[in-house]
């Protein structure tokens, strides 16, 4: 049970505090309700590039990192489809330094043209390092625009193309900030050695004076249902064939969410999952296989990825995979298999909440979903999923018409 206090500042910023006096540190997580789904389709990668610009100084702070390091702090950030998240840990006695730094860059970042140019180069190198210079690194760039025709989830967070990042101007970046970085879109969570009164006072003092920008309603194009299978074949200079399959599902908050989470655990929850047992252990057609749900706020995906063993035909491997899925649709899983995935989920959840940084992030995300208290009922909700529910969800979602497949063929050259 993770206890917390929660309050909202007059400017609309939400604050959650989990007090844990057993640590000398405080973790601060500042989540902005904006991600790559908010980007202009011709300027993809903007949300992530902006995350970089937030480290280039602000109105009253010439350099973000230096004062934090001098106070013994450590920080980082990430961007995904839905959110941009800034997090740090700092000795409890210096937590006010974190309030000063985070509130100042929410007030007004102060990057120059020169800093923008440098960060564009840095992000372009990141693009190359993580997506172009890795075997299979472009797989999501290929499959997302095929699965999504209109929704902004059709491009990856890093951006659809390097040219988008390269073309961002000062005006674009400032407009993105004005539109999306507002206290109303921010959730601040603190976990560790700070009591709620102190957190409330510091939040009011530093974030209170930050004015709420005009709230722009989010109006994203909704993806129409898919009822016909979509395929793409590519050939690349990689050592083994690979198979990627995705199916559309609902939002993270939907009633089916935990059923789908459990469904992918049944299929691919490690070495005891059905896919591994059948396709790797028994048939030896795949060298690795994985399945997961994307946990997106807007309607997301089930993603399955597998690397094919040398000498196995890609289409035959796919048929074997489809058989495992069909078996789950036709036959309800036995109770001990259900209990296995439930127990493993419980254990994973408790283990992930042993760390103050994870607790602060999980509290922020649950607040964004509507209630930080959801953090304490996750296990219960997962446990409520039954075998018949899992099979019904397999029939409903893992339908061939709802599926997009990427056949990633090796050219066989070295």
């Amino acid at each position, binding site marked *: 049970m993770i206890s917390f206090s929660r309050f909202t500042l007059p400017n609309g910023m939400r604050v959650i505090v989990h007090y844990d006096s057993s640590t000398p540190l405080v973790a601060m997580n500042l989540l902005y309700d904006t991600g790559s789904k908010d980007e202009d389709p011709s300027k993809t990668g903007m949300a992530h590039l902006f995350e970089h610009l937030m480290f280039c100084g602000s109105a009253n702070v010439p350099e973000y990192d230096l004062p934090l390091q001098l106070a013994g702090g450590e920080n980082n950030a990430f961007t995904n489809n839905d959110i941009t998240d800034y997090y740090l840990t700092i000795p409890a006695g210096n937590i006010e330094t974190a309030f000063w730094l985070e509130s100042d860059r929410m007030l007004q970042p102060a990057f120059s043209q020169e800093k923008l140019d440098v960060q564009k180069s840095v992000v372009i190198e990141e693009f190359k*390092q993580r997506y172009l210079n890795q075997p299979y690194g472009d797989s999501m760039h290929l499959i997302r625009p095929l699965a999504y025709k209109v929704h902004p989830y059709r491009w990856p967070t890093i951006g659809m193309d390097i040219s988008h990042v390269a073309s961002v101007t000062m005006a674009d970046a400032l407009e993105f900030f004005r539109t999306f970085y507002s206290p109303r879109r921010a959730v601040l969570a603190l976990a560790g050695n700070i009591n709620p009164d102190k957190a409330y006072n510091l939040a009011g003092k530093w974030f209170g004076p930050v004015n709420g920008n005009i709230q722009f309603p989010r109006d994203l194009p909704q993806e129409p249902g898919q009822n016909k299978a979509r395929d793409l074949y590519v050939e690349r200079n990689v050592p083994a064939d690979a198979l990627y399959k995705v199916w559309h599902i609902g939002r993270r908050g939907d009633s089916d969410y935990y059923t789908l989470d459990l469904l992918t655990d049944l299929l691919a929850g490690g070495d005891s999952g059905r896919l591994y047992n059948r396709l790797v252990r028994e048939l030896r057609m795949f060298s690795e296989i994985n399945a997961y749900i994307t946990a997106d706020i807007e309607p997301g995906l089930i993603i399955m990825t597998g690397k094919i063993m040398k000498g196995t035909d890609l289409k035959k491997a796919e048929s074997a995979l489809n058989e495992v899925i069909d078996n789950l649709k036709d036959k309800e899983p036995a109770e001990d298999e259900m209990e296995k995935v439930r127990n493993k989920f419980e254990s*994973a959840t*408790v283990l992930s909440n042993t760390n103050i940084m994870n607790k602060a992030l999980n509290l922020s995300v649950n607040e964004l979903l509507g209630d930080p208290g959801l953090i304490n009922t996750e296990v219960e909700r997962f446990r409520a999923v039954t075998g018949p529910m899992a099979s019904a969800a397999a029939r409903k979602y893992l339908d061939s018409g709802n599926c997009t497949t990427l056949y990633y063929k090796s050219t066989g050259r070295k």
Partner: protein
Amino acid sequence: MGIFLRVQPQVEAFNASIPAEPQLYELSNGAGIYLIDAGTEEVMRTDFIFRAGMVREYLPLLATTTNMMLAEGTLNYNARELSSTLDYYGIFMNLYAEKDIAGLTLYFLSKHARKAMELAGEILFRPVFPGNELDLMMKKRINWFRISRGKTQNLAMDNFFEAIFGSRHPYGRKVTEADFGKMTSQLVKDFHSMHYSPEEMTVLVSGKINGNITGLLEDFYGGLSSGYIYREDPENILSESRERKIKIAKRGSVQSSFRIGKRTINKRHPDYPGLKFLNTLLGGYFGSRLMKNLREEKGYTYGVHSSVSSFDLSGFMVISTDVGRQNAEKAAGEIFSELKRLQASPPTDEEMEVVRKYMMGEILRMFDGPFSIADSFRSVLDFGLNFDYYHRMAETIKSVTPDEIMRLANAYCKPEDMYEIKAG
């Protein structure tokens, strides 16, 4: 209402709070047990540590294969039953084989401690190494190996280790495709019986410890012994490549991966804490000289990092970065000029102060929570050291002088001693 001035809050001094030394218990067979009872959640972790790393192997892949095969079938569980049982009890297993050490780490809810200890006993001391499972393991691994060879970072790192430790020592030896065909059940069984000796293992238990964990360990392991005790192999000799600049071509690559570094002292050496400080200042944190120069000023790379690491028989320092091909030579030039700058002039007091504060914060983070304490303990235990190492580290962080950093740079970081590996 007055005007609110956004001035920087006062920064307080803080101290590294290094916990008391974990206590050593001995099982009746002589195995050592350390307990770290801490944390707020009902979870535990147990590390079983053996000197069964690559340094002990006479064929490439033997240490890693033996380790990975431990959970592929035991006297009482076949591979499939074992993975389902672990999952049923929500026990997370991590098998690992490093250069010196190999073993097993389990994470579990405290209430399942007994089951976790029983299963660890199966995995560690009753594996049967079935031939069909070994065959599958090698098929999977050769596939993974081919994929990992497609990454310039891995190509660069393997060639770096070969250059600084030699192609014949297990620290430096490169794996080839042919090696995957050489593993047999008998080789793996022999390696297991020589190096996974119950009386020579070290167990580290951390987390919220409920009940009598030492009693459980005694029940499951106290009576186990093995007939084999390993003796050092005098044939394993470290050597260095004569060539200091090595290029590995990779077709279609859009970036070059660099590994620039050399063999150096390890944790047992008195200069080591000072060298760690120097390394942090050079490339060990976001505000380091290399990050500022190559990333924040020039935009050559997404990241550049310098690290100093220890092995039992040696240590190494390495600077790693991935750079767009058009800037590759300029980036390498900057790395070497930063090394020269360290030798030529002492850092300013301001720069020293940032590193001091940052590293002090790191020490706090290294001891925050039971599993962090366990990690920090493990990384000295493997070298026969104890928390005294961290006290010396904290003392160095507070008191090391700019001139001392310059001395260390001249002793350990000469640009002319560096190996430069470039892949892609």
